[in-house]
């Protein structure tokens, strides 16, 4: 463009010199044509304003060439001269507008390119493969690169409070309360939106006479992380809209980055928990071995002695010792069970099973004194269920023992079962005092002893906790119902097949 302009001026000078001696013969049309070329070149080179100045200058030069003194211009000129002037001005305007538009578009394209490059650099710096990213310095880099006056990153901490990524941001915000108010406004809009909607994803802009404030919420995966705030002072500024787009882009990149960081932290947490659970589980298993070995030896020895011919007092004492050992064994088993269940390392051995096997195990495991009390009211037709049969039997035994212990001796306890729509219900019903509604939740708490515990001097207070945990592992639950006229019914409800599609209620 500059070259064309220079050539045009050179041509003007040369033609002026060339035609000057012979101006009487010079045709007005020729001058006009040359003048047009010059005006068009100038307008193309420097835009409309320059084009207009040059158009007027060329008009004056042409006047001079036609023998009209500058001081006579423009009043001394003939009418067709003014036609030339009009033509020059029109060309200057049209050409200037056209090329000026081009130049502006080019500048916008360059700006966009610069912005895209900045966003790309930002995302590259935040790639998982990149060395540890320093967010504040990255943002300062972006701010300088794009000549934005201030970029501030506000992050929401776990308690929902907004904090600053760098201390200098905090100081700046403290000096600009209006900016702070705007940023917290954007944050509040998102923090209160639940679930986070499209509305929350978009950025917000507010223009004051002095500056343009932009705020973009950082949202990724339905999680709100904070606000990216930017301020652009007003300087003949026409940039607003594209700056907002840029900020929104950057906010998505940042939000994705923060989401990934969060995920990494969660994974690390989960790993740590898992490691600690594994440690606890292996501790439980080694403690369990240490406890059980002497217990097994003592049980075997005492029961071996009881097989001998013994004087009656010795036999009585030994029998008592054996009962104590059995009690100790079941209490240790409870403690180890709950410890293992709490580490979540327990893996249920699910397999298809006949619920009748659970009931016969329960019946054959009863103490002689309780056999007459327990009645089985179970339909012969029950669906096969996918359960950990050993654990579920243990859960039911705890519930059964609870019913036997917490209802008056000699009163019956009934075991029942039914099935409906892919779920089975197993219940144990007693004629005891029942469970007050206020107690029902706490009954499954560790070591909780019911109000009626006067009936039950023994036990660790863990049985129902273990039963509830086992039911939970099966995707089921335990609830307590009242029985008329008095008594409690503990209902275990399980899916026939844990995790099966038809279980999705």
């Amino acid at each position: 463009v500059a070259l064309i302009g220079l050539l045009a001026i050179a041509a003007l000078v040369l033609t002026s010199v060339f035609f000057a001696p012979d101006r009487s013969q010079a045709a007005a049309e020729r001058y006009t044509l040359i003048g047009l070329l010059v005006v068009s070149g100038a307008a193309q080179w420097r835009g409309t304003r320059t084009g207009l100045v040059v158009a007027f200058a060329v008009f004056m030069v042409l006047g001079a060439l036609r023998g009209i003194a500058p001081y006579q211009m423009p009043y001394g000129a003939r009418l067709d001269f003014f036609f030339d002037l009009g033509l020059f001005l029109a060309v200057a305007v049209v050409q200037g507008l056209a090329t000026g538009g081009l130049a502006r578009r080019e500048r916008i394209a360059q700006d966009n390119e610069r912005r895209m490059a900045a966003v790309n650099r930002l995302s590259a710096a935040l790639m998982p493969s990149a060395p540890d990213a320093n967010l504040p310095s990255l943002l300062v880099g972006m701010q300088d690169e794009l000549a934005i006056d201030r970029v501030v990153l506000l992050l929401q901490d776990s308690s929902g409070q907004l904090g600053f990524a760098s201390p200098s941001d905090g100081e700046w915000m403290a000096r600009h309360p209006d900016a702070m108010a705007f940023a917290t406004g954007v944050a509040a809009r998102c923090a209160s939106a639940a679930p986070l909607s499209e509305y929350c994803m978009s950025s917000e802009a507010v223009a004051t006479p002095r500056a343009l404030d932009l705020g973009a919420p950082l949202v990724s995966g339905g999680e709100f992380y904070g606000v990216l705030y930017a301020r652009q002072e007003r300087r003949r500024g026409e940039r607003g809209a594209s700056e907002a787009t840029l900020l929104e882009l950057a906010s998505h990149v940042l939000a994705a980055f923060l989401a990934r960081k969060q995920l990494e932290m969660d994974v690390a947490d989960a790993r740590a928990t898992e490691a600690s659970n594994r440690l606890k589980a292996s501790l439980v298993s080694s403690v369990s071995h240490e406890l059980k070995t002497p217990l097994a030896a003592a049980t075997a020895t005492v029961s071996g002695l009881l097989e001998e011919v013994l004087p009656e007092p010795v036999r009585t004492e030994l029998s008592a010792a054996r009962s104590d050992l059995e009690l100790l064994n079941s209490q240790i088993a409870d403690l180890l069970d709950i410890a293992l269940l709490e580490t979540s390392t327990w893996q249920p051995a699910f397999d298809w099973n006949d619920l009748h096997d659970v009931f016969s195990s329960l019946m054959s495991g009863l103490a002689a004194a309780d056999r007459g009390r327990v009645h089985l009211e179970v339909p012969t037709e029950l669906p096969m269920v996918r359960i950990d049969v050993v654990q579920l039997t243990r859960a039911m035994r705890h519930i059964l023992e609870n019913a036997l212990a917490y209802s008056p001796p000699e009163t019956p306890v009934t075991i029942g079962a039914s099935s409906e729509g892919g779920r089975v219900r197993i219940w144990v019903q007693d004629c005891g005092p029942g469970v007050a509604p206020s107690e029902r939740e706490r009954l499954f708490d560790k070591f909780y002893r019911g109000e009626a515990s006067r009936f039950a001097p023994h036990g660790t207070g863990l049985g129902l906790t273990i039963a509830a945990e086992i039911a939970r592992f099966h995707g089921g639950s335990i609830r307590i119902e009242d029985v008329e006229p008095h008594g409690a019914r503990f209902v275990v409800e399980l899916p026939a097949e844990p995790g099966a599609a038809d279980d999705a209620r």
Partner: protein
Amino acid sequence: MTPVESSTRPKLLVVDDEPQILRALRAILSKNYDITVAASGEEALESAAETKPDLVILDLALPGVSGMEVCRSLREWLDAPILILSVRNQEADKIAALDLGADDYITKPFSAGELTAHIRALLRRALSDSGRPGQVRSGDLTVDLDERNVTLDGELVKLTPIEYAIISTLASNADRVVTSGMLIKSVWGVARPEDSRALRVHISNLRSKIERDLAVPRHVVTEPGVGYRFLT
């Protein structure tokens, strides 16, 4: 109980690394059995080769060569029954050991009576194994493996081919624990996980034909989480 003559006393190999357990087992068993003790897997294999025991009591938790490995090695050449000592919550280990050829298991802590009952049943079966048992009885139930029929109290029981396959497999392993996997394999040829459900259904149907009280089976009893046992 009167001590048995030394020459006819069965020889037991007890493999356990816990001195307390060994002491208790010695106290219970030495009256009626000749006991050899091994405290590790290596020792157990040597000892077994030397003494040719009539029955092996094997703890699965051993230092060095594992109980599982000992079980596998012994089964390669030793016909004597193997009784596994295991602890609660280890059904998977029990199944693995039974699948490797162990005959039975007992869970710690156990009483002396329980232990000797298991040992007696295993030895009795080992002795009768020499001749082919054409008929296996469980109370009033008789499984005739030669005639391929089952009678309850003298009456012929009508069974489907699969039900007969199940009960004949159990009866020919009378008093031993047969794992569900072994049973499925012997009935259907291959073991697929989905067969487990079918097996439970067939066993349930079988029981309704041979058991008087379904709540307390007397002939085919379930070993929860492990398998089944035909009681003689």
